[in-house]
C-alpha cells in the first residue's frame, strides 16, 4: 500500500463530506479561472490585434483610461504622419454598440477605420470586397459576426439607428475583430455626429536597420505627448507603447480587479470550508491519530497525512473547478449578450493560477488541523472516547 492510497482511503470514509469540500474548492477555483480567463483573454486579444499589425504606439486622449471614452481631433493624425520617424498611422473611431441580433440587443464593437489604411492589411476578405475611399454607409462584418447575424454581402445592418450595407465578410486572426463590424471612418463619424473626431490612433515607426528602436519609439511618444494645437495649448494626447496601453486600459484593469477580488473571496471561503472539514476530521479521529503515534508514526508523518488529505481534496476541487470554468466560458460564448466579448479559450497561465490557488487552499486548510493533531499527547488520545 502506498501512502497516497492510505490517504485516499481515509478520504473515502466520508464520501459526501469529502465531495462537498472538493466541490467548495471547485467553486472557488472555477470562479477564479473563469473570471481571470475571460479578463486575460480580453487582454491577450487586444495585445494580439496590435502585435499582428506591428503597432508600436497607441494614442488616446490624455487623462482618459480607455479608448472608448477618448475623443481626439483627427487633425493630429496628419501631424504625426509627417514625423520623420513615423511609417504608418491608423486612426479609429471605436464604440461598443448595441446591435439588434435576432431581436436581442447585443454589445458589438463597431470600428470606424480609414479605407485603404494599414489596419486592413491583415484582414482576409472571405466574400464581397474591401472598403474603398469613397464608400458611404457600408460595412464589413467579421466572420463570427456574419454567422451570428446571418448577414451576407448585399444585406443591411442597423448601426446607431442607420442602415449600413454589408459589402464584405472578413476573417481576422483576432477573436474580437472577428466579432466586430468595420465601417468607413467618415461614415461612422457622420452617424455618431462626431465630425473630425476619433477615439484614438495607432502608430508604426520606421525601423531602419542599426537603429535603437526603443529609442525611436520613446522619441515619437515624447513628440506626440508634447504636441500643441494651433492656439498653443496642449493637444492633450497620451501616447504609450501598446503593451503599456493594454496594461492600463480601464476595461481590462476593471475586469482584472473584479477577477482578483472574486478570487480573494473564493480563496477565503474555500479555505474556511477546508479548515472546517479537516478540523472535524481530526476531532473525529483523535484515538486513531493517537494509535498511529503509538505504533510509531512521527509527528511529521501525522502532519503529512492531514495536509496530504487536504491537498488531495484541493486537487480534486481544482480539476473539477477548471472543468467547470471551461463549461461556464463555453456556455457564455453561446449567449448572444456576451458571445462576441467572451472567448471559450482559457490561457494555460490562468489554469496554473487555478491549481496554485487550490494548492494554497489545501495547504492553509490542512496545516492548522495537522498542527493540532500533532500537539496531542498519544496517551491522552488513546483514552479519548
Amino acid at each position, binding site marked *: *500500500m*502506498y*501512502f497516497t492510497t*492510505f490517504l485516499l*482511503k*481515509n478520504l*473515502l*470514509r466520508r464520501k459526501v463530506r469529502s465531495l462537498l469540500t472538493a466541490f467548495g474548492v471547485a467553486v472557488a477555483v472555477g470562479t477564479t479561472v473563469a473570471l481571470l480567463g475571460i479578463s486575460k483573454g480580453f487582454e491577450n486579444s487586444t495585445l494580439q490585434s496590435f502585435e499582428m499589425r506591428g503597432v508600436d504606439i497607441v494614442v488616446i486622449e490624455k487623462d482618459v483610461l480607455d479608448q472608448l471614452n477618448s475623443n481626439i481631433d483627427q487633425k493630429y493624425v496628419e501631424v504625426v504622419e509627417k514625423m520623420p520617424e513615423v511609417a504608418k498611422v491608423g486612426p479609429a473611431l471605436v464604440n461598443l454598440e448595441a446591435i439588434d441580433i435576432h431581436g436581442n440587443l447585443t454589445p458589438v464593437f463597431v470600428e470606424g477605420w480609414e479605407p485603404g489604411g494599414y489596419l486592413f492589411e491583415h484582414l482576409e476578405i472571405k466574400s464581397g470586397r474591401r472598403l474603398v475611399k469613397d464608400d458611404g454607409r457600408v460595412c464589413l462584418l467579421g466572420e463570427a459576426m456574419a454567422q451570428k447575424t446571418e448577414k451576407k454581402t448585399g444585406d443591411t445592418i442597423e448601426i446607431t439607428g442607420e442602415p449600413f450595407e454589408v459589402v464584405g465578410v472578413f476573417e481576422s486572426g483576432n477573436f474580437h475583430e472577428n466579432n466586430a463590424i468595420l465601417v468607413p471612418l467618415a461614415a461612422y463619424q457622420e452617424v455618431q455626429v462626431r465630425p473630425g473626431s476619433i477615439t484614438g490612433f495607432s502608430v508604426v515607426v520606421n525601423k531602419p536597420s542599426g537603429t535603437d528602436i526603443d529609442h525611436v519609439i520613446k522619441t515619437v511618444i515624447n513628440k506626440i505627448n508634447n504636441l500643441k494645437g494651433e492656439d498653443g495649448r496642449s493637444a492633450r494626447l497620451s501616447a504609450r507603447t501598446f503593451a503599456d496601453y493594454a496594461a492600463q486600459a480601464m476595461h481590462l484593469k476593471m475586469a482584472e480587479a473584479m477577477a482578483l477580488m472574486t478570487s480573494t473571496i473564493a480563496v477565503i471561503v474555500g479555505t474556511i470550508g477546508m479548515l472546517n472539514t479537516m478540523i472535524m476530521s481530526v476531532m473525529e479521529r483523535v*484515538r*486513531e491519530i493517537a*494509535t*498511529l*503515534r*503509538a*505504533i*510509531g*508514526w*512521527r*509527528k511529521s*508523518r501525522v502532519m503529512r497525512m492531514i495536509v496530504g488529505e487536504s491537498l488531495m481534496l484541493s486537487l480534486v476541487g481544482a480539476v473539477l473547478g477548471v472543468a467547470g470554468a471551461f463549461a461556464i466560458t463555453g456556455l457564455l460564448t453561446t449567449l448572444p449578450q456576451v458571445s462576441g466579448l467572451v472567448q471559450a479559450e482559457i490561457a494555460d497561465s490562468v489554469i496554473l493560477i487555478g491549481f496554485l490557488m487550490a494548492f494554497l487552499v489545501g495547504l492553509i486548510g490542512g496545516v492548522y488541523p495537522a498542527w493540532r493533531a500533532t500537539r496531542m*499527547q*498519544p*496517551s491522552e488520545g*488513546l483514552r479519548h472516547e
Partner: protein
Amino acid sequence: MNKSPNPHRCLVETRKLCKTYPDGRVNALIDVNLCIRQGEFVAIMGPSGSGKTTLLNTLGALDNPTQGEVLFEGKPLGSWGSLDVFRSREIGFVFQAFFLLPTLSALENVQVPMFEGDLPVRKRVERARELLESVGMGHRLNALPPKLSVGERQRVAIARALANEPKLLLSDEPTGNLDSKNEAEVLDLFCDLHRTHGKTMIMITHSEEVARRAERIIRMRDGQIVADDPVVKTSRAG
C-alpha cells in the same frame, strides 16, 4: 518487593519513576523501580486506577514521567532524539480495543507502521503477509476489520505491533475483549512469540489465569509496585 535492577541486563528499566497528572491530585506512579530483562514475559496486575496503564504508557514513551527516568538498553529515553523514532523502532503496542483502521484490509493495517521505515512497497506487502501468516491470519489478508471476529482482529493487531520488529511488545489487556476460546488462542500466540522468537513482552491483565501464562507477575496498587514474583508453573506449560 522490587527486585534490585541490574542495568547491564535490563532491556527496560525505571528509576524512581513518578507520574502526577496535571491537576496535581492523582499520583499515578510513585517511585517505581523496575527492571525487565531481555526475553522476559511479564504480566502486570492490579485494580483499576493502580497505575498499570500509566506505567505501560511511560515504558512505551507514550507518556512522560513527572520525575525519575526510563532507560532502554541502559540509555535514558531522553537520549533518543525523538521518542516517535524510539517507539517506531523498539516498541510494539497491542491494545484491548485493537484500534485497527476500519477502511484498511488486514494486510494494509499491518503495513501502516512500516510507513516510517525505508522498505519499498513490495517488501512492505511481503512482510505484512508473512506476519499475518505467522499469526494464523493468512487466509483473511484482504478482509476489513468489521468483517473479522474479535479474535481475528486482535491477531491482526499483534501482527501490526510486530511490523517494525520491535524489541519490546507492550499490551494493555489484550484479551479483555475476547471470549475464552479467542483468549486462549491469543495467549498461545503471545507465548509462542516469547518462546520461539524471544520477544520481551509486558502485558497488563485483570485475570489471574491470563497472568499465569507469563513468567513473572508484577502487582500494583495506588501507583506503587506491591509484589513482583516469578510464576511457578504447575499444571500448564506456558
